């Protein structure tokens, strides 16, 4: 019997095996970039760079963008894009601040309402994309403007100061609470971000829903024919991403102490940068949460390292740009040799 059955030979060779490995583990490349980057900076900058305080500082600096990048990862895995994540984050923080301070809601309720507002924004994106079948790029470009306008309308362009929040709604600043671990300082916001990353990793890799997100982004028609309700998957992903942006709004308040209508503008692109450098493909279905964390850390460490090395800000931007091109180029190469 076995001799009758058809046999397919496996394509062999050392090069092929490396390629197969990279296909299965695309996170290896950003990890390598991070390790090499750290090595170079520790040589140039010296002890200061590897000091636990500096390392934990970079983690703090990437926490807000990292949070948005986690949400962005989910969306990019479905072959979508969300240009409104930064606006949703600011909107959520403004909702929290306004409800708690201007409208006198109990701070806990204001917090929940802010996160819910993020979820509603995400659901709105999801509705436009799944119900009206509009391209995510256009939809989120539109909602980005809309959410910004709502922020402007609600806040009146006003900052709510750190002292006022500390006096009436300290829970909004909870994510900024720092803990001393040896020489390192960890904020609860960073821990929240890492916890969320673990949760999302579990969801993507250990549940059927996670596999469906990958399949939907990789080949929506194939996923549909396999019995996956791709529209439901898409909608739920935008909803979830919106909720995460809402939590990011909370982390943002902890980071800057205040509620400010400023500062969300560059966050959209920064989140996409982290995702792309982390090896997640803009064409969907390929990438990982761990990669995004590494991507965010690469951006953080390169900025920090270049600044400590005394280089001008221009070179930080230049280097990040090069990393983006390299990451996208690598993804294209991987996809081409697969075909």
């Amino acid at each position: 019997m076995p001799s009758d059955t058809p046999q397919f030979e496996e394509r062999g060779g050392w090069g092929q095996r490396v390629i197969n490995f990279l296909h299965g583990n695309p996170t290896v490349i950003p990890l390598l970039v991070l390790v090499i980057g750290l090595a170079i900076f520790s040589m140039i900058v010296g002890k200061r760079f590897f000091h636990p305080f500096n390392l934990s500082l970079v983690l703090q600096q990437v926490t807000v963008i990292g949070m948005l990048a986690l949400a962005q990862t989910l969306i990019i895995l479905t072959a979508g894009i969300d240009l409104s994540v930064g606006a949703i984050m600011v909107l959520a923080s403004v909702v929290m601040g306004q409800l708690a301070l201007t409208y006198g809601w109990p701070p806990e309720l204001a917090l929940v309402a802010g996160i819910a507002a993020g979820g509603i924004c995400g659901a709105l994106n999801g509705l436009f994309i799944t119900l009206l079948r509009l391209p995510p790029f256009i939809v989120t470009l539109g909602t980005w403007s809309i959410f910004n306008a709502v922020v402007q309308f609600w806040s009146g362009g006003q900052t709510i100061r750190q002292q006022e929040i500390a006096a009436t709604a300290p829970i909004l600043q909870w994510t900024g609470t720092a803990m001393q671990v040896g020489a390192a300082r960890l904020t609860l916001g960073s821990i929240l971000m890492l916890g969320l990353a673990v949760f999302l990793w579990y969801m993507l890799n250990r549940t059927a829903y996670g596999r469906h997100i990958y399949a939907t982004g990789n080949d929506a028609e194939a996923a549909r024919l396999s019995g996956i309700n791709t529209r439901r998957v898409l909608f739920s992903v935008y909803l979830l991403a919106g909720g995460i942006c809402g939590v990011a709004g909370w982390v943002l308040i902890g980071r800057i102490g205040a509620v400010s209508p400023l500062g969300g503008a560059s966050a959209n692109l920064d989140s996409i940068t982290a995702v792309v450098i982390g090896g997640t493909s803009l064409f969907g279905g390929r990438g990982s949460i761990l990669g995004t964390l590494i991507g965010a850390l690469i951006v953080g460490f390169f900025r920090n390292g270049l600044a400590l090395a005394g280089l001008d800000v221009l070179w930080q931007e230049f280097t990040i740009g090069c990393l983006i091109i390299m990451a996208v180029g690598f993804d294209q190469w991987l996809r081409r040799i697969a075909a």
Partner: protein
Amino acid sequence: MKKNSWLALGGAVAALCLSLPAAQAQDKEILVGLITKTDPNPFFYKMREGAEAKSKELGVKFQAFAGKFDGDNDTQVQAVENLIAAGASGILIVASDTKAIVPTIQKARDAGILVIALDTPLEPMEAAQATFATDNFHAGQLIGEWAKRTLGDKAADAHIAFIDAHESQPTVDVARDQGFMDGFGIDTKDVNRRGDEDDPRIVGHEMGEGSEVGGRNGMETLLQKNFDVNVVYTINEPTAAGAWEALKAAGKDDGSVLVTSVDGGCPGVKNVADGVIGATSMQFPLLMASLGVEAIVEHAKNGTVPEPSEGLTFTNTGVKLVTDKPVEGLESITSEEALKECWG
């Protein structure tokens, strides 16, 4: 039936087209346009409020436009074009790109519109008939001098951190920064260029994009470069608030660091009262806007063009130093007094 309804629609459109120019010609009402950089910024928000209130008071029509982001020239060009088409009498503009907007401004002037630059002078300055602005160099000088006098002898070995806005070195950004240096007694070298100084007291320049997040990130990086920082210059008050969070996290919120800023927004003034900001230079956006509206109405009625302040190339709308730790020889107002005049 279908044909008829098309005909009716065509007739209606034609009638509308004919009546529009007629309506415009009849309507001799004065229209004032305000174009700002971005919407989500209390400074511009206040400007708009001021212009709107003044327009109402004088009984003229008012229309406001804003760019989508700082540096968004295209949207401002469109706004100017729209105002020309709408037959505006005058335009108040806070230019995002002070050079690129100039040809469009010329078009407006050719159409007989009075153009006044607010807050930021155009390049060249004569591109607008008048400029109503804060003397940003002087605003920087005031806080620089305050810091120097407060430190006294210790100013000679201060460690100064600079958190500016953008690496593209916009004029306002550079003027405040260089003004601070001038006031503090640092050789600015080229006064139109930031970063060419070699004074060892400068710890470094970081770009905070004028926001809290940027202020905190920038301060953290500069503290990593030199933990002994004892003077901080910030481009505006949100940046100062962000920098303060970083100082607090580093345990340097005990008053050992002098934080200085420019703007005079209400949250900023309250931060002076709370000891977060040592001193800030207050500017008057509401005044800029309302003076601008007045000038346009004046021009529309009898053709007068506003004259620049004495000794300056623009109309100075004034700067006041706000601090609760006044120093001798430097005029200042307290945060309590400032709270009555603050904006945003």
